[in-house]
């Protein structure tokens, strides 16, 4: 059992692969935005890598553990302490009953992960323990005083994630984000496509687990965006309601919004580009004011990146302490 002393800023239980199978009814997959750090935290405490754990956003929680066991803190550096004493992140961390694990504000990056041996044992809702906070599906963000049960823990061998197997958060606050053209790139002019891949895009403060809003140069639209049937809508960026991929660069008027884990399932705006799933961890750590530069990749290349990421998030990547 763990008890929430301070909840942090919208800390939530997440699980992989997320809430699949209900998207057609409007339920987003949810799940951790930085699946890489999430999986490493689980592996450090002897869990299967997709087990339910906590995602912290910008400011982490304070948690009192009521049983001896293991924890791991990964993702953004939130200056974790155990009973006030600084502890290392990216290692298997022994915790004793009564101790308080506290995370503060993220020094770089935005999302931290805390896994406990045995995993967080909240009830599944529609087949998943992932939280969609905005609609209260699978519960809400943590509240002070809340208690979370832990599952049965297996044997834990203390290990660490070597530097090379951790996501590197750039000091320059400039990110290169791989993105595939489509599905609706034909709604833009060739110049607008070139401008998308060739420009700096600044992350707006109004960004969350539903979408990352960007500021940058204006988009110009192809003929079909103007000459379309009226039911598509009046704005050039309007299209008949359609499904929204995770990672879609959704163009609402002139504002691109990258749709992430808790995004709306459908809507009436075009998606000219889609961020590769292997680049989602970068979206998880991009802070307001950070700059995104998009690098064009093919579907095949994006799938290769996904495979490489998948292979990295494996027990073999851990090192002895």
């Amino acid at each position, binding site marked *: 059992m763990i008890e929430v002393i301070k909840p942090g800023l919208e800390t939530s239980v997440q699980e992989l692969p997320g809430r699949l199978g209900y998207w*057609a009814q409007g339920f987003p997959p949810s799940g951790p935005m930085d699946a890489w750090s999430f999986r490493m935290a689980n592996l450090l405490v002897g869990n299967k890598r997709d087990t339910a754990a906590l995602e912290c956003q910008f400011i982490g929680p304070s948690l009192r553990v009521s049983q001896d066991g293991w924890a791991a803190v990964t993702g953004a550096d939130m200056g974790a302490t155990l009973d006030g004493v600084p502890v290392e992140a990216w290692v298997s961390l022994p915790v004793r009953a009564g101790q308080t694990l506290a995370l503060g504000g993220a020094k770089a990056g935005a999302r931290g992960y805390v896994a406990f041996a045995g995993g967080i044992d909240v009830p599944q809702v529609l087949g998943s323990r992932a939280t969609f906070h905005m609609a209260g599906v699978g519960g809400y963000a943590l509240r002070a005083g809340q208690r979370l049960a832990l599952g049965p823990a297996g044997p834990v061998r203390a290990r660490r994630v070597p530097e090379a197997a951790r996501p590197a958060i750039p000091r320059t606050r400039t990110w290169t984000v791989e993105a595939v053209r*489509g599905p609706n790139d034909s709604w833009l002019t060739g110049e607008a496509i070139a401008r998308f891949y060739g420009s700096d895009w600044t992350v707006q403060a109004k960004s969350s687990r539903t979408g990352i809003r960007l500021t940058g140069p204006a988009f110009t639209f192809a003929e079909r965006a103007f000459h379309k049937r009226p039911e598509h809508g009046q704005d050039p960026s309007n299209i008949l*309601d359609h499904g929204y991929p995770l990672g879609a660069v959704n163009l609402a008027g002139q504002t691109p919004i990258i749709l992430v884990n808790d995004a709306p*399932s459908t*809507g009436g705006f075009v998606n000219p580009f889609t961020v590769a799933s292997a680049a989602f961890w970068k979206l998880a750590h991009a802070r307001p004011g950070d700059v995104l530069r998009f690098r064009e990749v093919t*579907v*095949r290349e*994006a799938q290769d990146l996904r495979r490489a990421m998948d292979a990295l998030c494996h027990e073999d990547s851990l090192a002895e302490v």
Partner: protein
Amino acid sequence: MIYDTPQCYPGGDRYIEVELGDEMSFDLNFRVHSLAARIEAARIAGVIELIPEMASLQISYDPDLISYEDTVAEAVSLAATLGNGGDAELDSRLFYVPVLYFDPWTRECVDDYRAHVTDKVADPDLLCQLNGLPGRAELRRRHSSSEYWVAALGFWPGLCSLMPLDPRARLNAPKYNPPRTWTPKGTIGHGGAISCIYPDRTPGGYQIFARTPMPIWDREQRLPAFRDSLALFRAGDRVKFVPIERDEYDFIAAEVEAGTYQHACVDYQRFSLAGYRAWLGRIEAE
């Protein structure tokens, strides 16, 4: 138009947009759901889930199990088996939705918007003006005269896009600009040619003029209709609005509160496209 062959586009490394046409029509939407049903029945290894929408469907796939090209090829070849859809039938539940038209809660919401955002013609009156209706009674009559087709769900869990199946019940309305910041749970709205029921208190953009006490969304899955999901409707269901008065509204609301409410649902019917087309032909002839 409805395309001869679906047009497929990648959405990153895990999704595909399959566009079957570019119009808002029942025929096209029915085709989307027919294709979705065939893809699901084919149980293609690596296909994870679908989001059928107005004119397109999105496929989620696992690229470790099936390639982009093979997924597209499967979708295209299944679409080719649809023909003109003349013999198509889909499972279709019918829900009777009790509705209090011109209720105090949506009126309060509209008044709040008019006072604090921008003055506008009250939503029911705007619908009457734009659709040549003499008054609210005719709007209620018209809006409740048809069965509606659940063409798609999305944007918010359980939020449904409803298309009137009777062409004589068609209404048109612009959307709010800017959108509302709140809408009462259970509000009935209309935007473009589509009606909707707001599952929860959410922002919104449709013109609003009625409210149902019948939940279409239940976070706690308390009522029996929510055994399988938190959201009531599935695409391909049908909805019939049944006008009620305030006393009936309060009676149903109390039943919902007590956890004893049973949704009025007919779930032994299939929707026949041929039967529907024949009926449309008879209406047009009249």
